[in-house]
């Protein structure tokens, strides 16, 4: 098949696509809906993952030291902890002065509080270190090691216990959402493939009488087949564009509810970040699906 004929079969496919009107509309609706559900479940899965990640990042262990522990001692403990790179992601030292400044700024620089602190005459806050773990399930281990460490007597208190329950729940949610997302995603992809294949089969079935005519006036099998393959590709392409529009609208409305829930920003920012990747994937998936469905569905109508 030369380029002239290939170009003609493409035009033929494009023309079918436009002139089929209602059937084209139905096919695109179904394909778009399938692609939309698959990409939305991808985006929601990613969102829940990022929200949890964001929450985890806010989780930390706060170790307060007794007032008589000198700063050098705390810094050396900090350095020692930094050595456990597999478990400890970061260790931040907060001196008594920093803690006071932070406390005052968090209380909105209230003059009454500032005065109260002054009346005590001495900084009432303790120096502390803030430890972040590499993985959330490591907090427990870190706390246990701190309690048994050589500096256990220097520690005034570890405020992890009270957060323990929240951490455990977070871990469970994270695991569940990932598993559910994977299962739902695969299920929807499977459904999308089935529906699209069947819709295209119906489209081709509605043309079956034309194949005989085409062959009768001298069209080769490949010449009969190519327009439908191109038509299938167009279904994929247009459906991908339609899906992107749907996703934009949905993201726009979801966005306000997700402000600040993720490091990346809100749902719209996430969508925009992934938009190009999603579009490419949809086009690749949609076009492949369209092309293969058409190619397979038409086979039975073309005698060898």
């Amino acid at each position, binding site marked *: 098949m030369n380029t002239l*004929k290939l170009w003609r079969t493409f035009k033929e496919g494009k023309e079918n696509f436009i002139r*089929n009107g209602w059937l084209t509309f139905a096919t695109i609706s179904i394909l778009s809906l399938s692609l939309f559900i698959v990409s939305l479940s991808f985006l929601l899965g990613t969102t829940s993952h990022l929200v949890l990640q964001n929450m985890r990042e806010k989780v930390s262990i706060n170790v307060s030291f007794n007032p008589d522990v000198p700063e050098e001692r705390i810094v050396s403990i900090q350095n020692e902890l930094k050595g456990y790179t597999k478990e400890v992601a970061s260790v931040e030292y907060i001196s008594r002065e920093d803690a006071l400044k932070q406390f005052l700024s968090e209380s909105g620089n209230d003059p009454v509080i500032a005065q109260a602190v002054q009346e005590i005459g001495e900084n009432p806050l303790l120096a502390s270190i803030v430890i972040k773990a590499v993985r959330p399930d490591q907090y427990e281990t870190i706390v246990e090691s701190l309690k048994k460490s050589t500096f256990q007597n220097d520690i005034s208190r570890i405020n992890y216990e009270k957060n323990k329950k929240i951490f455990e729940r977070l871990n469970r949610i994270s695991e569940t959402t990932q598993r559910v997302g994977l299962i739902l995603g695969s299920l929807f992809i499977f459904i999308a493939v089935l529906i699209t294949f069947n819709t295209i089969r119906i489209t081709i079935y509605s043309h079956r009488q034309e194949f005989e005519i*085409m*062959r*009768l006036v001298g069209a*080769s099998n490949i*010449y009969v087949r190519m327009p439908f393959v191109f038509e299938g590709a167009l279904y994929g392409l247009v459906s991908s564009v339609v899906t992107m529009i749907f996703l934009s609208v949905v993201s726009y409305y979801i966005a306000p509810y997700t402000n600040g829930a993720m490091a990346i920003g809100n749902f719209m920012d996430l969508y925009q970040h992934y938009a190009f990747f999603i579009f490419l994937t949809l086009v690749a998936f949609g076009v492949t699906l369209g092309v293969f469905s058409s190619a397979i569905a038409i086979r039975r109508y073309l*005698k060898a």
Partner: protein
Amino acid sequence: MSQEETIIRFENVSKVFPGDAVILADVNISFRSGEFVSIVGASGAGKSTLLKLIYAEEIPTSGEVYFSERPVGKINRKHLPFFRRNIGTVFQDFKLLPQKTAFENVAYALEVDGRSTADINEEVPEILSIVGLGRKMHQFPKQLSGGEQQRVSLARALIHRPKVIIADEPTGNLDPVASEEIIRLLLEINSFGTTVLLATHNKGIVDKLGKRVVLIDNGRIIEDHDKSKYILK
């Protein structure tokens, strides 16, 4: 150009469909180049099958059909589209592509051949005006009358300048006036040297033609008259 040269020849051809339905039984007949032959017989007599064997839509169960001394049954299915460009076909149900205009339906036969767009834009309007549809070439089949649709179909059959036109009940769906118009066109095509095989059971048409008539009954050739009248029982 020799009028006597045989273009199509059936040699002991039988066609049996599954279930031992004998459609054609031991048919021997030839058609000469430039002839106008009416093939008549009741429905189911085997007229259509006889014609289908010529353009290789069917393959004989036994025997052989020759087209220009080439055995049709032995043509590789891959080469069939090329072979079919020698034969123009017209049917009772027109067989037009519903989503293409008259122009596009005719152009399609040239497009599949890989002909240039310039050629197509020149030849298609020409042939459509020959069949009297010059002004309606951008209409879709459903916007045309039955007679007009059949003329589009005829234009498409002619576009490759085939050696043979096979018309299988071309007037079956048409009123008498439209039928007459189609027959007139077939005669005109024949007058330029194209062989025409016309299957019909329209007595009036065949009688008026005064050309060769072949009568088929039960898969056998019963009568074969030159310049004779068709006498229906």
